[in-house]
């Protein structure tokens, strides 16, 4: 921001943005939307937690009250689904 651009005196409108969630470009490459990063981290966490859940099917942790509900299993699965939706949709938008 130029020092003179502070405030209305500058007289210009805010910059026009090409696409939602992706405001910048560098070297001709458009910025990945934030949803892509949300999707990736959810996918990774989902895989890890689902793996833990699978390992706990025959060996539930004794200290966890709700172990019989297998929360790791379905929560890991949910994270994978949510992560995949975010990642795939944001990649399509970018394309």
């Amino acid at each position: 921001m130029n020092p003179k651009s502070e405030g209305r005196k500058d007289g210009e409108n805010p910059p026009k943005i090409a696409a939602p969630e992706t405001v910048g470009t560098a070297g001709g490459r458009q910025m990945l939307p934030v949803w892509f990063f949300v999707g990736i981290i959810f996918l990774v966490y989902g895989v890890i937690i689902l793996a833990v859940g699978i390992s706990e099917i025959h060996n539930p942790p004794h200290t966890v009250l709700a172990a019989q509900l297998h929360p790791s299993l379905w929560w890991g699965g949910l994270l994978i689904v949510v992560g995949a939706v975010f990642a795939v949709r944001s990649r399509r938008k970018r394309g």
Partner: protein
Amino acid sequence: MNVRQWTVSLAWLANLSRAGRSRAVLAVHPVDLIIIVIYFVMVLGIGFYLKRYTKSGEDFFLAGRGMTAWVAGLAFLSANLGSLELMGWAGASYEYGILAAHWYWIGAIPAMVFLGLVMMPFYYICKTHSVPGYLNLRFDRATSGLAATCLAVITILTSGVNMFAMALLLHVLLGWNINVSIWISSIVVGIYVAAGGLFSAIFNEVVQFFLIWFGALLVPILGLVEAGGWNGLVARIQARFPGQDYTHLWKGLGHFSTNPMGIQWTGIVFGLGMVLSFGYWTTDFLVVQRVLAARDVRTAKMAPIIASFFKMAIPFIVVLPGLLALGVLPFRLVPQSAVHPGQYSYNAVLPLMLGRYCGPGLLGLGVTALIAGFMSGMAGNTSAFATVWTYDIYRSFLRKDAADSHYVSMGRWSTMIGVLISIGAAYLVMQFASIMDYVQALFSFFDSPLFGTVILGMMWKRTTPKGAVWGLAAGVTSSVAMFVWVKLDPHMLAVFALSPHAKIMAENMYRALWSWLICVTVTVLVSLATKPRAEGELTSLVYGFTELPSEGHLSIFRRPIFWGAVALAAFVVLQVIFW
């Protein structure tokens, strides 16, 4: 509602730490550590990825003014969603029941809708980069300088306190070394904010927002399963605490003595709902900066309204765990002052419930949610400090005509220096723990009077620069004076809060109310006695002199006023349901 003076009792953490507790509250599995490490790698990766897109001052300080309403709205909320607040309010819910939800509903929703529909257009159209920047345009450098200096000091000290609190919390909960936690977390935040500026802070805040939700959401879900749903939970609480009302929002607020919080409905409605919340949500630059990054006026109006819907849902992951603990924990939690070996204070509710329901992996996700909350708060303070320092202090008073690249460079350096000062503040707090209470109260001294100054400046053309600076100074001074007076003489609480039955929460509400009234009164009186600015200078700054973009061509579902009305209707429905 971020009422910083009401957070987890840091003294609780410090006492546990000093007592050399033999075991951590939570037992962490290696898979939990993997999840936490992945989180740190991810936030750093986002920072380095975004660095290449951060070229100009507008990129660094305002994220290119290109964010959608959803991104700006979630970042707006995430910057407020600190872990200390989550844990503190879960503890408050155990102590006070559903009354704690007032801070998420009447203490936030009307103010967020008001920010979106009424105030945001002025902030956005005048193209300011900050709240002190608006004051500079509307009034003068004196008012702006006063606000900027207060904000810079407060943000950096708050960041230091957060940093120390996180390290202490990780030490108590997980047994981690305090020094390592302080340095690693602060350097990570410093690197990613310095690299990508507000871009990076906002992107990470959105990621952190989802992590907080998905990390904490299992506790209420599994808790409700165990308790037999909401009705089962209410029945359990009534059976375990006969004669006490933990599940009604307004029923017990007729008098100070008929509810566990020691407050009356006037304090909640006027002190919290009309002053504290409006002061925080409409003028606190930490959150407003996120909305200034929106790509156009309609987006800037929609962002806080979208955030208000998520804010309404937060009691599900904060207040409900506290209520569930009342209903299902086999032991009683006690006040901080009554903790004996083998007991836990109210503030341990959230970690205890995480430990109760989450096994390996899920516990790591829950702990990551807490760390994410800390880091989003730290990053918010750090990026706000960099902006206020660079534009409202350095550029206004020290170097006016440098190139844009110079200010970007100053922004990066001030981010890292700000982090280092925060680390210094963290160690200062470590030596003098009582400082924390005062630092946490700093925002409360400032936000309410600032709201008086800004709202008069926006809505009343007669407000003069002299009126603004004197009103703001009077409001802040009176707030500090009332705080100190009550500290020195606790009997004054009854005077300020209008009842001998009032408790400390009521003091916060009424102090905010009085300091706002003093600010407004002084501003009006001085303004009437001094010369106002010419009307031609008020364009885009004051109601009646600002051309607001028409939304007549938009469908009803794309209009902010429609969604604002829906948010307010949902807010009213919640009050009726839990009356």
